[in-house]
């Protein structure tokens, strides 16, 4: 099979449990190379879980998770690490290294995986900080940043190696509208320029419509709807309609899925 026909990410009928709580109940997704896919759904539905399955931090109970056609759960540690060198992951809480400066945080993947001299590292790091609107903050420590600034540093760090696939867990949360548009444009541009594949978890329907080529809506452990954003917006599926238009009443309940009665 030629590499370019293989989807970048593919989930085949994935079932996943935390303890005995069923989180994902047969989820399938196909994200072609070069696309920006959005994953939406109510809080606690399992969006982060899906990203962690793709990165190999979690393993499915049944079903397969394929990255570039390779089964992630069949990878040993070495293969997993090799795969991750080509996979950027913006964690939901950023998870900056609290003992390192902003500069060193962004430089860490470069120092680890690229054989570059100090000036070259400095050039790249400065350029990446500039791209997220944080030029000149290199000497600050993470505790000196605001929440939104920290997320942008984490974003710069996640993409500093120019990975072929990037997973963004709520890149826009807690950012002001200008920063949101900037980050949006940044994701779109790197995607088009470098041909990378992005998966964006977001709650922001408006931004999602602008950014994504394709969108999955998750409800109660299953894919409730999928398609290009424009199609989804016009969908008459009740769950999709409820989510896209933020209605209180509908098939998606507003409660913890593990609560009695579910």
């Amino acid at each position, binding site marked *: 099979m030629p590499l370019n026909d293989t989807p970048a990410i593919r989930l085949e009928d994935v079932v996943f449990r935390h303890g005995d709580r069923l989180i994902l109940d047969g989820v399938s997704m196909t994200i072609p190379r070069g696309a920006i896919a959005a994953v939406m759904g109510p809080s606690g539905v399992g969006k982060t879980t899906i990203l962690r399955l793709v990165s190999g931090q979690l393993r499915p109970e049944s079903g397969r998770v394929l990255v570039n056609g390779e089964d992630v759960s069949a990878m040993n540690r070495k293969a997993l690490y090799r795969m991750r060198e080509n996979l950027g992951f913006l*964690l939901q809480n950023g998870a900056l290294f609290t003992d390192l400066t902003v500069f060193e945080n962004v430089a860490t993947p470069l120092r680890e995986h690229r054989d570059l001299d100090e000036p070259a590292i400095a050039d790249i790091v400065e350029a990446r900080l500039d791209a997220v609107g944080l030029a000149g903050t290199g000497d600050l420590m993470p505790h000196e940043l605001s929440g939104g600034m920290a997320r942008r540093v984490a974003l710069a760090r996640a993409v500093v190696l120019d990975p072929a696939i990037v997973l963004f867990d709520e890149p826009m949360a807690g950012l002001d509208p200008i920063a949101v548009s900037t980050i949006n444009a940044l994701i779109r541009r790197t995607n088009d320029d470098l041909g990378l594949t992005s998966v964006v978890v977001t709650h922001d329907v408006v931004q999602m419509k602008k950014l994504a080529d394709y969108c999955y809506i998750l409800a109660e452990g299953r894919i409730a709807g999928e398609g290009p954003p424009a199609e989804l917006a016009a969908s008459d599926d009740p769950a999709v309609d409820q989510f896209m238009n933020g209605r209180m009443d509908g098939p998606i309940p507003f409660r913890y899925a593990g609560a009695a009665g579910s």
Partner: protein
Amino acid sequence: MSARWLEPVATAGRAGLFTLQMLAAIRPSMKQAGETLRQAYLVGARSLIIIMICGFFVGMVLALQAINALAQFGAADQVSLLVGKSLFRELGPVLTALLFAGRAGTAIAAEIGLMKATGQIDAMELMAIDPVERVALPRFLAGLISVPLLTAMFSAMAILGAVVFAIGVMGLDAGVFWSKLQTGVRFGEDFMGGIWKSVAFGGLVSGTAAWYGFSARPTGAGVATATTNTVVISSVLVLVIDFIMTSFFT
């Protein structure tokens, strides 16, 4: 039911695997050596003052007790011999290791536990950086390096404390004190024997701390438990291993 009884065995097994994982990550690289030295400096500097103070007072107490006991046989001039032997072989390495566990071991466990609770260990793995190699190993090796040095410092301060008490306070003869120490205490057996022991203790304490940090539950309470366990378990291990080593080598 049987699972409850198997739990400690399983934990010991996992800790053993963790140790092998650390040892397997040793590379002849400048980066690793640099980080190890940096950690050795950090844990060493953290523990130095408390170890010097404790060493001084332990030396004074040893001299006091030794003079009291020996005076009954009219042998108070043997004090430096008794102090030196018990210090270099046993008290120096053991007390230094216990102090190190309380001062540096807890810090290592808390630091790693917090990194875990805040997702930094996760983030490393996602960047294809092995946290065992990058975080645990340098701290483990730093224990191996710094505890013997701290032990030597502890013993030096204890001798100073003994000198202050025996010569300064009790008015014993300085020449006799030093000559007894020099002829009675053997460098190879007594002093170096203790230093080798302290290498083992250092690895034991810092390894235990790294293990508890890594296996901490990612919560505030989890980190607290990890630091407590580090002190309790590594102290017990030091005393048990000390007994085993002493009975083997004498």
